[in-house]
């Protein structure tokens, strides 16, 4: 008989430091699954992953298996992957196309939209058996914004609009890199296992401080990358931003505008090599706005808690335990931009994933963080960097700071504390 421990989060999360146990304590992890991943909003997938009626794709929300499907009415559905009879995981295939899900245990059959079709030997179920009430359970709340599917497993709670807040603009910026205003995540996902706590990923993904150090090997191997070193002391005026709600960004726009050249975010590929893309962008957005998009590029940002808009890649994480997490990556393909997409595929392979030139170091650092945190002294992780120079940027209305500052970590933890401590029943 284990005694339920109540963890007082206000004592563990401070403005300039967080307690090490937040990354290692299974009790914390259990609270996070409940309060952040199950009750809160998180990213689940994209409508382009199920383009046709009958398409399905397995995913996970927190620790719970779900299926994204497209029903015969061409609507996206988000279903729990559990037979309503005795709990069998009804869909074992990762993805595919089907008219029905048939439970292999007793033969209960459901349409691809989740509605019950029938059970063998139905007479035995009694005369009150109501098939219409026995469909696969729907995830209580699902919202789709420009193809990005978000969900909450709680029927009640903060609205999707309140969750997304100003960060809607970040999704807009990613989608508006396409002349059609639409992105396509159909190139498949690389899946990368980290023996580390899930929070290290969003904290690392908008950390501008580690790049010059942890990724030094790529700078030494590729000159083009070394010119992208993040160094505010050498004129890099990129900034870190707090978008509210735990959403954070490394914003390179100011640096890219120093030269005003397009595609610096894309290995500096000359515009002349993508003439159709440039023409289609100018046609879609007008010359000035198209130029701005092509100079500034897609965002480098985290949407709390698990989506990483990684410039021309999309990444998300699935937590496994306090010590393990899986990160997914796919290229951000742009509808109407085949010239970009052909390069994006190869760029994703170079930058993202377990075999790439960047992410293996991030995984190694996250794992070494986890190992280091087994030492319980000092008790705290230091997140003070930039506290004395962060400022309210009047142009954007966002709390901002220099590119190497830990404002992104602090923003993440601010939202974390809000969700973990304001939860009904949580210790005050």
């Amino acid at each position, binding site marked *: 008989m284990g005694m339920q421990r109540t963890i007082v989060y206000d004592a563990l999360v401070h403005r300039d430091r967080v307690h090490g146990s937040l990354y290692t304590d299974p009790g914390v992890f259990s609270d996070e699954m409940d309060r952040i991943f199950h009750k809160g909003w998180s990213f689940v997938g994209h409508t382009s992953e199920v383009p046709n009626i009958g398409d399905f794709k397995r995913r996970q929300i927190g620790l719970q298996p779900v299926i994204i499907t497209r029903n015969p009415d061409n609507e996206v559905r988000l279903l729990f992957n559990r037979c309503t009879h005795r709990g069998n995981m009804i869909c074992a295939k990762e993805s595919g196309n089907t008219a029905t899900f048939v439970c292999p245990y007793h033969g209960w059959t459901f349409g691809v939209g989740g509605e019950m079709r029938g059970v063998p030997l139905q007479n035995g179920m009694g005369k009150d058996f109501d098939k219409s009430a026995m469909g696969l359970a729907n995830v209580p709340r699902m919202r789709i914004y420009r193809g990005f599917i978000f969900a909450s497993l709680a029927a009640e709670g903060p609205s999707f609009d309140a969750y997304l807040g100003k960060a809607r603009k970040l999704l807009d910026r990613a989608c508006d890199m396409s002349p059609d205003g639409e992105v396509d995540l159909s190139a*498949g996902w690389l899946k990368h296992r980290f023996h580390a706590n899930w929070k290290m990923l969003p904290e690392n993904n908008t950390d501008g401080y580690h790049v010059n150090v*942890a990724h*030094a*090997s790529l700078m030494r191997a590729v000159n083009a990358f070394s010119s992208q070193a993040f160094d505010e002391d050498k004129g890099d005026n990129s900034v870190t931003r707090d978008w509210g709600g735990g959403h954070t960004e490394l914003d390179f726009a100011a640096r890219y505008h120093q030269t005003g050249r397009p595609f610096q975010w894309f290995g500096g590929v000359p515009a002349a090599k993508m003439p159709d893309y440039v023409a289609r962008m100018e046609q879609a957005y007008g010359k000035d706005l198209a130029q701005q998009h092509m100079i500034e590029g897609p965002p480098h940002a985290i949407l709390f808690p698990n989506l990483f808009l990684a410039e021309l890649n999309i990444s998300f994480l699935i937590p496994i335990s306090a010590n393990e997490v899986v990160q997914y990556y796919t290229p951000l393909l742009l509808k109407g931009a085949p010239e970009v997409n052909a390069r994006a*595929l190869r760029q994703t392979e170079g930058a993202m994933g*377990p*075999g790439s030139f960047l992410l*293996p170091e991030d995984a190694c*650092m996250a794992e070494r963080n986890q190992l280091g945190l087994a030492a319980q002294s000092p008790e705290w992780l230091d997140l003070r960097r930039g506290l004395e120079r962060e400022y309210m940027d009047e142009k954007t209305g966002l709390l901002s700071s220099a590119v190497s500052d830990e404002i992104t970590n602090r923003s993440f933890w601010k939202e974390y504390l809000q969700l973990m401590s304001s939860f009904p029943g949580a210790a005050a």
Partner: protein
Amino acid sequence: MSMPENEIREIEAFLFLEARLADESRYDEWEALWTEDALYWVPRRADLDPAKEVSHIYDNRQRIGTRIRQLKSGFRYSQTPASPMRRVLSNIEIAPAGADEYEAGANFMLMELAIQSTRNMNFWGGRTLYRLRRVDGGLRMVVKKILLIDADEPIANLSFLI
């Protein structure tokens, strides 16, 4: 068409050499095995179309060069120090492919110690498909396509030479 025994032995010896250079992280010698039109490929699926889908690794000759320079930089932390490794090749099949090339396939099992962080013993397995070419009397590698059994599952760092 049956191949002469000595030709089969020569190709097997090449495959074993390539495997040993990879196991021992002998980067320069491994890089020297490649032709200029090289492809070092770890797809997520055997029939994956690289024009439409993303692979774990899809290195042309230039990118192999970058990979090796990065490994040799001393700062490739995910391979510093290099993972101790040993692999076993088996079920080798070889067929001629045109005038001066061969296709070969071999199952492999690879034990890799993630000495840089977790010290987990990672167990990798699958089948490797090779395309080899006779150049100046010797053999060179044109394509190495590694079909991991778990390529579409979550996998650990793949920054060593697989």
